[in-house]
């Protein structure tokens, strides 16, 4: 019993770490983007200030589904983050860092979000939710194909297992071993993070920030926290799957920063797709590349 409690405490620690890390990263990257556009940009801790300001405010409610959905979203995402390994040895629940657990657990958070947004009754929110679901449908398929290739090659679906397989030299980092798959995964990751050009479901000014349109105060703050942790989960997944995980926390931080910064830079120079363009885009080249990569890696056995 004590052990389980310790594990849960540890897991919550991981989630908090992820939140702090990603919020700081977000701030730093806002500054980088600002420099790119010849602005000074906000302070690096601006995002913390925003979130704590929002949390201290009162909020209006739109019925119990609306409130409950927010809590479900946040709880689900924190629950997911608890399972995330940081380095190969720092895992809260050993043996449960399975890729499939993340696939299904992360859906709880998304679902809460969708429920809450539709519960608000704002048509723009519904449009946003529908677009988010459609985008998800588009990017998940190629990403799954690539990840399955990795799982098939390493013979394990545990994240630390995959990371260790890359560290011990059984495989090169999968970004090198599976170059085509890596490109696909980068595109999918941009879709997951809701970065341009795939930010269609938020689409500020077009559908008034989509699912989030009706939120304010505490609830918006909670959604921000949820958003940050989601990004933490997705980027860490990527690090573990493609960049060989990390032996030490320092390495993890470096890799994390590089991935996020590069994605941020790429997204800042791109425009926004229309929703049908998103779907056709993902089902055209990424899916094709993913399948080709899977064929090459598994059928022909050509892994660099």
């Amino acid at each position, binding site marked *: 019993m004590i052990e389980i409690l310790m594990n849960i405490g540890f897991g919550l620690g991981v989630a908090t770490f992820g939140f702090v890390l990603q919020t700081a990263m977000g701030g730093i990257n806002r500054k980088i983007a600002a420099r790119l556009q010849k602005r000074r940009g906000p302070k690096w801790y601006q995002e913390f200030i925003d979130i704590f300001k929002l949390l201290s405010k009162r909020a209006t409610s739109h019925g119990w589904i609306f409130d409950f959905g927010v809590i479900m979203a946040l709880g689900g995402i924190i*629950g997911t983050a608890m399972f995330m390994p940081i380095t190969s040895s720092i895992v809260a629940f050993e043996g449960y860092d399975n890729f*499939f657990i993340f696939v*299904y657990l992360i859906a709880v958070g*998304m679902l809460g979000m969708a429920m809450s947004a539709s519960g608000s009754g704002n048509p723009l929110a519904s449009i946003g939710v529908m677009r988010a*679901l459609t985008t998800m449908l588009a990017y998940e398929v190629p990403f799954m*194909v690539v990840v399955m290739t990795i799982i*098939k090659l390493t013979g394990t*679906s545990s994240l630390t297992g995959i990371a260790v397989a890359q560290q011990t030299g059984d495989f090169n980092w999968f970004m090198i071993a599976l170059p085509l798959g890596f490109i696909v995964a980068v595109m999918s990751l941009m879709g997951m993070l809701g970065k341009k050009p795939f930010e269609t479901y938020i689409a500020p000014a077009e559908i008034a920030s989509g699912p989030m349109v009706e939120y304010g105060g505490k609830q918006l703050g909670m959604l921000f926290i949820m958003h940050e942790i989601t990004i933490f989960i997705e980027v860490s997944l990527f690090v573990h799957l493609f960049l060989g995980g990390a032996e030490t926390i320092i390495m993890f931080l470096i890799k994390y920063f590089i991935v996020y910064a590069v994605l941020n830079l790429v997204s800042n120079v791109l425009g926004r797709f229309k929703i049908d363009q998103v779907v056709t885009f993902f089902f055209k080249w990424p899916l094709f590349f993913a399948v080709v990569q899977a064929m090459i890696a598994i059928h022909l056995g050509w892994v660099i």
Partner: protein
Amino acid sequence: MSAILLIAVPLLAAFISILVKKVSPYLLLLVSLFALVYPFFMDMSDVIIGGFDSPIGINLVVNKFALTSLIAVNGLFFLVVAVNIAQYKKLSSILLVALAGLNGLLLTGDLFNLFVFIEISGIAAYLITTTNKKPLQTFNYLVAGTVGSSLYLLGLIILYNMSGTLNMADMATFVEGNGMYTLFPFLLMFIGLGVEAKLLPFNSWVKGILGHSNNLSGAMIASVYATAIALVFGKLLAGVFQIEGTLALIIALVLGITILAGEAMAYASTKAREILLYSSIAQAGIVILLFTVGLGAWATFFAIANGVSKFILFGVVNRLTEEVGSDEMDQLKGSFVNNKLIGVSFTVAALSILGLPLFFGFVVKMNSLIGFFEPDFVSNLPGGNFIFPIIILVASVIEGVYFVKLLTKLWYKDSDVKVNFTPLFKYVVVVLAVALIVFGLFQGEVEELVASLINPGGVFIWN
């Protein structure tokens, strides 16, 4: 105590209930309760009928798999009957025949006897669907079902000609020695069962039946029958025809297309019942796929979890449709706001099918997926333990999209849709939803239960 009672008692009761119309509903309740309780007290030994030993005579196989499936199917049957009997008193004797047929399907160890039970339960099913008041659709179902079972019989008789036996255990040893030659008859039998199991090219009847279903027929066909047929499929695929090579590839292809096409059609549909029926086509595909690749134990529980969820989903949606008069999602908008208890149970069932954690569906889906990547799991298909996880995962993603769409519509705020559910129905639905959660939380226990279905060699239990 003998397993034959599970078949004989319902048949006898059916006969009595024709003679004495007044008591028939009570008799039905009593007998279906008996069928639910009885498996708990059964001995684990095969039953020989008519005094001939098993390769020659007909035998009933009672093993853990049979017991598990009997408890699941009879439990669902009892609940369906208990909830609906007040409205459909006239069908009592037919339902008793259906019960006998279903129990026979799950128990019999003889391939021809299986055909007989398919027909018995099939005829009962046609009669149950006449309550939809859509004779043309029922007729289509009847034609499809009859052709299917005829093809099954044809394949069976070719196999009999080759092997000289109709006993499943005997057939298994024969098939093992003569893999290639059993290809054609097996395909015929597969098609025949595929009609009932809603697999893709053979499921044209499903839309007509489930798209117009009522409280009784929807739950009966989509939940009880679907579970039973999936388990029968499992019995054959895991116990008799351990297929491999080209044949497995063909079948896996059919199943893969079934899954994806089913999900795609569910995604495209705007009617609540159609979403559910296409989704159940896809689920059936997944279950049989798991059986085909050799993950039989988890497939069994997949089928059961699915049956429980489908009971709730179809039960609720049919009741809503009956009251509102349409199953368009927009018409049903917000129905759950005034029925929170039902709404929550419906949500639980949908999420369990989706495979979200906390629910039974997650335990099952998760473990099946991990099963694909177990080091000692060798797929009998080229690339099998790579493509199928993708298909299942993609299917889950699509499911996620349309179930969320459905749920958000049904939970829509401010609605004037008011539907009354009977207290009994509410009670049953809530209990089932709680069961889904309980099984989802006690993951370890479920895994033990599954492990007990697998013998040390890692082969799905047969004898």
